[in-house]
């Protein structure tokens, strides 16, 4: 009979009408991810500055100060600073840009400074031809930023005129706008008068989680481990282990759900509950939810080590026990880990809590409670 069923299903299941356009799905998936993160200030852990070919007709070489690397990592044509740095001409004789780890790069007609690209930075350019007084301080500099790793991404164009600034260390320079700092492989092509300069830099994906809006909870993974990020109305943020501290009798990993409708985290199999701080509220779980160390910067959270889970109080006595009744957990608004084995999506739409409460301190599996059956599992300790 199992073969019958197998044949029946295999015959009935339709084949796809269209093949998926993998390239397109990939581009859309990546872009959507970035769109979701846009707006948050990126405290990116930046990669090494990358610089590529220079003035048209001239390959990179002696005098530009940088060389093209043989093996561009990740398809981004990354270059390393060369042995002979580019030195700006008279009267701009500055040995180095005065910024740690930064180098000059370009030609006397147009050069820039390459440095750690993390954080917001201005798009800055120098030229021996730039005369701040002659151009009324508004140089006709144009810069086009393109994503080399995502041809579908929108180009960012600064179409001039730019502005200017002066420092004792760097002299007069031109500012085209703010350099894009979204993760990816960026190529900047600047044009000023007859000179053109191309610079490629890479912003690495931040090893961080996006900060959810205040008053919300999100489900994320940290190094493959499921966690919840709680950003409460008062602005405080917690990252909590999403794996239930209760192993239960079936010996499989259970992932908690955030029950928006109830306002607590719940183990939808065995009924343990935790408040939004991760503290134990009831059920067989031996502890609360383990929190993680975290650093907050801009719109991002950098997650550190897991700390010990908060101890649960002694089980309440029968006169003062925690009620198993409570608001129902509406799966349609509940949040869990997509894709994690143990996803409670397999439960029915609504985990309805027994409105009458169970007359004992023992906690029973949620499915038993929702079916209203008489619990028979004293193995589930309180």
């Amino acid at each position, binding site marked *: *009979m199992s073969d019958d069923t197998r044949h029946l299903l295999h015959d009935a299941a339709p084949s796809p009408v269209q093949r998926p356009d993998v390239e397109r799905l990939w581009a859309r998936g990546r872009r959507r991810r970035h769109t979701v993160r846009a707006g948050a200030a990126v405290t990116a852990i930046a990669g090494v500055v990358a610089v590529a070919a220079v003035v048209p007709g001239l390959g990179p070489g002696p005098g530009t100060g940088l060389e093209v690397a043989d093996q561009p990592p990740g398809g981004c044509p990354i270059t390393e600073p060369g042995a002979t740095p580019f030195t700006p001409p008279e009267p701009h004789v500055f040995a180095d840009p005065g910024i740690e780890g930064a180098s000059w790069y370009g030609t006397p007609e147009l050069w820039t400074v390459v440095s750690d690209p993390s954080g917001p930075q201005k798009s800055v350019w120098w030229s021996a031809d730039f005369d701040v007084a002659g151009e009324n301080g508004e140089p006709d500099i144009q810069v086009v930023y393109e994503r080399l790793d995502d041809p579908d991404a929108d180009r960012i164009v600064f179409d001039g005129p730019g502005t200017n600034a002066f420092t004792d260390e760097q002299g007069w320079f031109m500012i085209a706008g703010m350099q894009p700092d979204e993760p990816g492989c960026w190529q900047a092509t600047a044009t000023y008068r007859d000179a053109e300069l191309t610079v490629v830099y890479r912003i690495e994906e931040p090893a961080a989680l996006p900060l959810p809006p205040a008053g919300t909870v999100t489900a994320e*993974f940290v190094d493959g481990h499921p966690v919840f990020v709680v950003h409460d109305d008062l602005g405080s943020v917690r990252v909590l282990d999403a794996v239930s501290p209760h192993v239960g009798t079936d010996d499989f990993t259970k992932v908690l759900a955030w029950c928006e409708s109830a306002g607590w985290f719940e183990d939808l199999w065995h009924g343990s509950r935790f408040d939004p701080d991760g503290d134990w509220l009831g059920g067989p779980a031996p502890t609360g939810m383990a929190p993680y160390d975290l650093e907050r910067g801009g719109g991002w959270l950098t997650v550190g080590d897991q700390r010990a889970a908060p101890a649960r109080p002694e089980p309440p006595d029968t006169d003062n026990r925690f009620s198993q009744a409570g608001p129902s957990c509406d799966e349609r608004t509940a949040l869990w880990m997509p894709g994690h084995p143990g996803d409670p999506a397999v439960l029915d739409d609504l985990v309805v809590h027994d409105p009458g409460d169970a007359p004992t301190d023992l906690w029973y599996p949620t499915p038993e409670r929702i079916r209203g059956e008489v619990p028979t599992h004293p193995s589930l300790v309180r």
Partner: protein
Amino acid sequence: MVEGAHAETTAFCENHYDRLVGGLALYLGDGAVAEELAQEALLRAFGRWEHVSQLDSPDAWVWRVAINLANSTFRRRAAERRAHQRVTPDRDLQPDDDPSMRIVVMRAVAQLPRRQRTVLVLRFYLDLSVEDTAERIGASHDAVRSLTKRAVAALRTEMGSDDPAAVVEEGR
């Protein structure tokens, strides 16, 4: 696209896409929505491919995401589409199939309760073992066996054959 990821994702689609669509179509009772959903699930996987590709079975992840979508957002859309399809021909049907049988099976599966439907598709369409099915849905082996038994019985009833003797062995 980065070269390594390109080869990986292409191979992934090659190996898993048809199964994903077929399984979802059975689960939802709707081939068109299944395709839409499968693509949405792939898109989400690609969005965090660094993570997904490191999992033991990325296809389980994608399946799970698709099922979650099927259970939430897409449920409404599926209903809309079904209503629409009552007045338009079913584009999924190939001429050489027996359309009546396919429709009967698809509808019968779609009528089953969610857990039974899930187990049925996982075990008999995706050909997972009791153990793997149990892990995917977070249930015990016994629960999977019992669900399987009930699902097959219900399927037979739905399809008009309700001989209980025929399903006895199903739980293994």
